């Protein structure tokens, strides 16, 4: 092994002799990333402050946001989409992540047989495209086909069946649960990984102290996997506030019935791209994208500065 001093001399020489290499190595990634991702993002934020009048783009300050939040033509659908989006997120946090944690806890039972098979099978839905997932569930939940009434009949709950996707009261919950079904594999895998990383000695020490089973899970394992739960929460947050595809495939761009499943992603699509009688509006599209950006950014910042810092990292 070379010593630290030698390495730093090497590095210092690098700086003088070979600095062009660094640029060559960085340039392609930097160029594509900046040109296709960062600049359009900034341009979108900028466009939200402009509007088109008489074919001329003029600076309007925050007028677009005032329209979005307050103008009767926009505000109702915006607040509706925002509220739906929060419900969508809440259902994921309350259903997807607890199920993911439970499955991971079951999978990490020591000496479990067929563990690899279960993991592979349960992760499969995550890989399917929204188009497949959306249409499969649309067929299964369809009253025409009768698969779900038949299955409910098997457990004696046939009377509960109704066309959930078609009713304004239940459509959002149904779509959210379809999304949960698809994505439960991600928390499951990440928590499973975190549980594998808990050292044997800690669990053995707990067993010596008589902490086993349920109380071992709540008192020992859960605190140790909290950082992973934090990561999953922020991934869920970003994914949910950026979601579009599933609602689009299950309920169409209008996010029916009667806007009951409209979330920010579908609202952005309709606003920016236009749909049926509605004409696409670039400025308002950029405004909605900016609002989504600010929501996601504040979520990420909250996670990075408030949650992650307070979380204790255990070093073994």
């Amino acid at each position, binding site marked *: 092994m070379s010593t630290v001093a030698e390495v730093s001399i090497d590095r210092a020489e690098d700086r003088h002799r070979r600095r062009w290499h660094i640029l060559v190595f960085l340039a392609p990634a930097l160029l594509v990333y900046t040109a296709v991702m960062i600049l359009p993002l900034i341009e979108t934020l900028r466009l939200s402050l402009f509007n088109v009048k008489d074919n001329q783009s003029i600076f309007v300050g925050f007028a677009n946001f005032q329209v979005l939040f307050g103008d009767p033509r926009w505000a109702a659908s915006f607040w509706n989409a925002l509220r739906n989006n929060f419900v969508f997120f809440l259902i994921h946090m309350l259903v997807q992540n607890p199920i993911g944690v439970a499955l991971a806890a079951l999978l990490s039972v020591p000496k479990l047989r067929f563990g690899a098979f279960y993991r592979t099978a349960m992760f499969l839905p995550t890989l399917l495209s929204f188009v497949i997932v959306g*249409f499969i569930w649309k067929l299964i939940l369809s009253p025409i086909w009768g698969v779900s009434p038949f299955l409910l009949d098997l457990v004696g709950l046939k009377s509960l069946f109704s066309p959930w996707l078609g009713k304004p009261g239940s459509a959002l919950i149904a779509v959210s649960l379809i999304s949960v079904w698809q994505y439960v594999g991600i928390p499951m895998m990440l928590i499973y990984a975190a549980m594998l990383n808990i050292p044997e000695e800690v669990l053995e020490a707990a067993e010596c102290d008589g902490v086993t089973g349920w109380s071992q899970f709540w008192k020992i394992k859960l605190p140790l996997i909290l950082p992973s739960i934090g990561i999953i929460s922020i991934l869920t947050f970003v994914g949910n506030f950026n979601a579009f595809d599933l609602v689009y495939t299950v309920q169409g761009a209008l996010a029916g019935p009667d806007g009951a499943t409209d979330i920010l992603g579908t609202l952005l699509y309709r606003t920016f791209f236009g749909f049926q009688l509605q004409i696409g509006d670039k400025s308002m599209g950029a405004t909605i994208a900016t609002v989504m950006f600010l929501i996601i950014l504040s979520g990420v910042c909250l996670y990075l500065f408030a949650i992650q810092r307070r979380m204790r990292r255990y070093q073994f």
Partner: protein
Amino acid sequence: MAKPTASPVRTGLVHLALIIYTLIALFPVFLTVINSFKDRSSIFRDPLGLPTPSTFSLIGYQTVLGQGDFVLYFQNSFIVTGVSIFFVLLFGAMAAFALSEYRFRGNTLMGLYLALGIMIPIRLGTVAILQGMVAAGLVNTLTALILVYTAQGLPLAVFILTEFMQTVSDDLKNAGRIDGLSEYSIFFRLVLPLVRPAMATVAVFTMIPIWNDLWFPLILAPSDATKTVTLGSQVFIGQFVTNWNAVLAALTLAIVPVLVLYLIFSRQLIRGITSGAVK
């Protein structure tokens, strides 16, 4: 210390719970596949029955292959996904090498700048991306999709590969330098072969969202010649929504490649996740 052996009852309950969830996860896929091989009346009469010689029918597949341009859609998806992954891996590895190997002013800042895209979805810039693609004349080309997906995949690739490249021994690289290898040869001939496992992980992680994406094909390349298989099946199913045979067959055709790839790569993918590649 010997582990206390779990009681058979508890082990049985654990398996029961896992089997129930496995069924929930697999049942919809299973249902779709078996019904795609049945004739119309038995799809409705007996949705859960396996296809028998008397109910077996390929009418759905005939409709799909006769009506939709699925061969072309598959080809488009393969080109877009393959080329994007190639660029993500090449550019990502190059940038990761620069960040992990050299000390230069702004190194940390550059790393943070490239990591921004892990959390901020590229979708939010769609308005300006479309505007730019229109200006560059790239609308309805596969190039537009490849550019977007390359940019989308780079942040995570750089992040994972940088961590991985820090583990490559300095002695090896310095030995290469003493032997007179240029920095480029050190990267391509010494470092790249060593980080191959990490590259495979990145490739799998990058591939799934690209293959499944609906948003950008819908907005940037909706023309018939450039439809990806995800968009193609979305449009096809939308048109044939009452033809259940065709819909089920189209869904099955869309599932098969994912299923095959997953069976090949599942070990890689699951190992990638569980070894903490994404944190």
